[in-house]
């Protein structure tokens, strides 16, 4: 099976502190990379490297066998990145935020009301997001996962402030995405409860 995303001898330094060094992994279609580690261990920094937002101190990231910098456009076309911040503007309603992200990625939402209803936001579609709870805002942000056609998902703490019911729904959706040949990279402090056929786990140690 061909390798989609790979890291070779990756190192990251922040404020003179080595977060991790000589990190290697290979991900092919249908695989999850599950990154664990204490606060400050470098999980988000690793995700930002993988999303092409910052450059590694040493080593390289390969996308379909080519260095990330040489295939940046192609990579970005296939990537859906949801970072630590939700990407939701609090002054806009759930529907408006959804419309913004669907327009930007040029991917149509068949029925936004139905999608938001499915995510437990029925009746809250038309109020500004700052009036929603943290978990509800996270739901609006994650709604993108249900209409995107991009194969590579990089998600920073997707389960934060979600309730058990929605976590179950989300993990179900992850499994669907993986069986369709997608790739997921995610960080979490939460133990994954669904059984993933091909799970790779990386534990980042907190280093001084």
């Amino acid at each position, binding site marked *: 099976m061909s390798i989609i995303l790979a890291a070779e001898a990756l190192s990251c330094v922040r404020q003179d502190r080595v977060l991790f060094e000589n990190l290697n992994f290979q991900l092919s279609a249908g695989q999850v990379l599950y990154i664990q580690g204490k606060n400050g261990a470098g999980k988000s920094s690793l995700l930002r490297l993988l999303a092409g937002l910052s450059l590694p101190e040493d080593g390289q990231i390969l996308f379909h066998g080519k260095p990330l910098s040489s295939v940046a456009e192609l990579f970005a076309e296939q*990537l859906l990145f949801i970072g630590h911040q939700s990407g939701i503007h609090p*002054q806009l309603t759930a529907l408006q935020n959804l419309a913004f992200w669907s*327009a930007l990625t040029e991917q149509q939402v068949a029925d936004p009301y139905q999608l938001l209803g499915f995510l437990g936001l029925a009746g809250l579609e038309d109020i500004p997001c700052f009036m929603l709870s943290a978990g509800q805002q996270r739901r609006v942000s994650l709604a993108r996962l249900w209409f995107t056609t991009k194969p590579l998902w990089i998600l920073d703490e997707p389960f934060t402030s979600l309730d058990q019911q929605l976590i179950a729904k989300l993990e179900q959706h992850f499994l669907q995405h993986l069986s369709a040949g997608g790739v997921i990279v995610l960080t979490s402090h939460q133990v994954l409860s669904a059984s993933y056929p091909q799970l790779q786990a990386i534990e980042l140690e907190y280093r001084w």
Partner: protein
Amino acid sequence: MVMWSSLIKRELQLLGRQKADWLNPLVFFLLVLSLFPLGIGPEPGMLKQIAPGLVWIAALLSVLLSAERLFKDDYRYGVIEQLVAGRQGLFSYVTAKICCHWLSTGVPLILVSPLIAVLLGLDWQSWQVLVVTLILGTPVLSLLSVLGAALTMAADKGGILQALIILPLYIPLLIFASGAMEAAATALPYTGQLAVLLAFLLFALALVPLAVRQALRMNVG
């Protein structure tokens, strides 16, 4: 095109919710200009003579005032980070921002210009020239302020820094715009100054959006 119109729609929705963002600069502009006749004295000849400089300085400062918060929210809530990661929509996002900034700060200045003409005792001819310089000049003001906002969005107190970066770039605009109005007031030809303003506009239109995109990428990386 569908993408761009949705982005414009989003910016307009935001302006609709955050009315202070575009009302404050307009009120500031009117307040400053209405204070001059009181402070300097209502002598029409005097006011008429200094009007070109006054109008343009007030316009500069009010546009600068409006730009500080332009990217702050989107930066804080991670919208820009995700746009930079996704790449494809970033340029459209930048052009939509610039366009809506002009619609919300430049256009209102043009619309209230008849009132300004009355306040400062401008005649029909001078008002016409004022409107033409505003039409050519305010888009340049918007382009430059968006650039300043993009460069300073990650800075904690970016306002003063932004003023320091952008004000020097405003100076040529100030000179030629008020120069055109002064020439018109003394019945000299002023098409030369207008042509220079047009050249500024075309130059800024071609380069500034690219620079803004780069500035956003730099700030996220």
